[in-house]
């Protein structure tokens, strides 16, 4: 069983939700990333999504674009992201790390070399935004063989055929994009999410996390009532942006603890 699968199994046994924060590796600077990852775990994170910065983040809104830009300006690269994961792993053997990014840095390294290096560094999952199932069957198979879960997105526009496509080659969990738009957008349609999640979960046979647009304890709780996991990205990056450097980690911890508390108040399994 993969680290990701065992996290979900453990949480489901106790009726809890997974909290999945997203940060961009190297933002605001590379020295802060590993301490921040540990801080996320201390504040109740169950899985960490680590963004691999890319020059052209087409699916991201302004907040994650800025994070990506800051990280690249500090010399971040896919290789260095893997080094950061390795450093984190040396102290934390339990918390799954999922790399989230775009295809081109992986293509440049070579997909096979990337999978080998990621597995060696202690990466547990990969979510490549612009690798839909039809374009990455071989990559997903290589990743799985190396013990890395290939994680796929579903969206409000996805058809049932798409549910089956991602179920066939994905593993770990499914990431449901809660709105039409880019990361960090505003309007989250709780009714749509509540209507879609049971269908998706029944069809894909995997835990389903929801992200894009979750900004506070209230939205996290409402999503948590129907989802197995809640993903929060842009809001954490804003916290980092708006805090003085020496306070940044503490502020993120306080923010995330608040979310954790809200999620833990939910009773029973996702509806």
């Amino acid at each position, binding site marked *: 069983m993969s680290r990701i699968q065992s996290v979900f199994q453990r949480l489901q046994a106790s009726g809890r939700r997974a909290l999945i924060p997203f940060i961009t590796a190297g933002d605001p600077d590379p020295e802060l990333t590993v301490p921040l990852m540990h801080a996320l775990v201390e504040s109740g994170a169950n899985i960490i999504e680590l963004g691999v910065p890319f020059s052209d983040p087409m*699916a991201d809104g302004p907040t994650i674009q800025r994070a990506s830009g800051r990280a690249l300006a500090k010399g971040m690269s896919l290789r260095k992201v893997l080094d950061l994961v390795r450093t984190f792993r040396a102290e934390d053997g339990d918390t799954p790390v999922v790399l989230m990014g775009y295809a081109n840095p992986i293509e440049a390294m070579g997909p096979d070399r990337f999978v080998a290096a990621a597995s060696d560094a202690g990466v547990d999952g990969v979510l490549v935004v*612009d690798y*839909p199932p039809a374009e990455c069957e071989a990559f997903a198979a290589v990743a799985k063989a190396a013990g890395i879960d290939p994680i796929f*997105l579903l*969206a409000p526009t996805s058809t049932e055929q798409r549910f089956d496509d991602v179920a066939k080659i994905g593993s770990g969990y499914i990431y449901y994009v809660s709105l039409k738009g880019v990361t960090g957008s505003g309007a989250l349609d709780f009714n749509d999410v509540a209507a879609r999640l049971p269908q998706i979960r029944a069809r894909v046979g995997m835990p389903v996390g929801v992200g894009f647009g979750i900004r506070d304890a209230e939205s996290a709780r409402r999503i948590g009532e129907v989802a197995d996991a809640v993903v929060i990205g842009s809001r954490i990056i804003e916290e980092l942006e708006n805090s003085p450097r020496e306070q940044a980690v503490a502020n993120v911890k306080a923010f995330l603890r608040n979310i954790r508390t809200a999620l833990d108040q939910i009773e029973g399994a996702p509806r």
Partner: protein
Amino acid sequence: MQMADKPYKFPDSSGHFGPYGGVFVAETLIPALDELNAAYDACRNNPAFMAEFEYELKHYVGRPSPIYHARRWSDLLGGAQIYLKREDLNHTGAHKVNNCIGQALVARYMGKPRIIAETGAGQHGVASATVAARYGMECVVYMGSEDIRRQAANVYRMKLLGATVVPVESGSKTLKDALNEAMRDWVTNIHNTFYIIGTVAGPHPYPMMVRDFQAVIGNECLVQMPEMTGRQPDYVIACVGGGSNAMGIFHPYIDVPGVRLVGVEAAGEGMDTGRHAASLTAGTPGVLHGNRTYLLQDEDGQIIETHSISAGLDYPGVGPEHAWLKDSARAEYVGVTDQEALKAFHDLCHLEGIIPALESSHALAYAAKLAPNLPKDKILLVNLSGRGDKDMHTVAEKSGIQF
């Protein structure tokens, strides 16, 4: 030079040209692209749709565009004869409008009232704004703030036509960033919005669809050249930004034996300076903007900033079909510098009374290099993709002139 004797038939059903092309986009866009694919398929197999497209090209754009024998220039160069396919004479002044009409008709068929577009030089933005006005659609154009500065006249034209021009401040503030921003808009407004991509790039079916709409250029040449010269040309030469004017004139010639296809990229300040936009000549394969193709990128797969005197060629990628034509050696790709393009620009002004777009001047410059080394009975057909009125400021600035 010739490919296998079977007829050329690309892309395959999933949008691949050999290893290139495909659909590399986030999940939210996949159903929209499936829908577009089905709609385009229905349109192109519908005689009434195609008849309307042709009617619009004839009566609104002014097609067929003529071919002109640049006799004085050819004589001065002293070798092969240069013929110009006059896309500069189209309504709105470039080849871009052919594609915009086609896509606007598809948008209308799909019932989408809002169109968005990215633009570099502003020609595609102007063409999109034009067709939006013509068909009564809302139009939003994304344009890098650096390009807005370089192409002020076209920005004003778009506004006159009723479009909203949104400046893009991210990344290098040029064409690739405008494309990113248009994609973000599309993903947010899929329900009512049609994205008119301006070149043969993006996810399938765009490279194929844009090529099909632009192929009117080459199809006309296939008829016009024998009428004028008794035969097909020895070379077909076109500039390559994203590659739509080149694909439009190349595609009908792919299966014609003995015709060499030459794409001319922007070598900017020189290939060895690193300040250029020659993705096919100096790039490596990768994935950007929905397809796999040649890209200008660093070792880590980050896209690098490009440079060209012409905003329309200032793009770090290239349409995937060109990547395939390069690898299969059916077409060849070369670079022309800013200086060489400027010289061809001035020569055409002085010798033929035609002010070419700076983009097209790259193709002209390569023809001027090639012609003197070829016998006088050889024929070069150059795609004069647009007129140069939009480039007055850039050229004047280079010559130290102020308006």
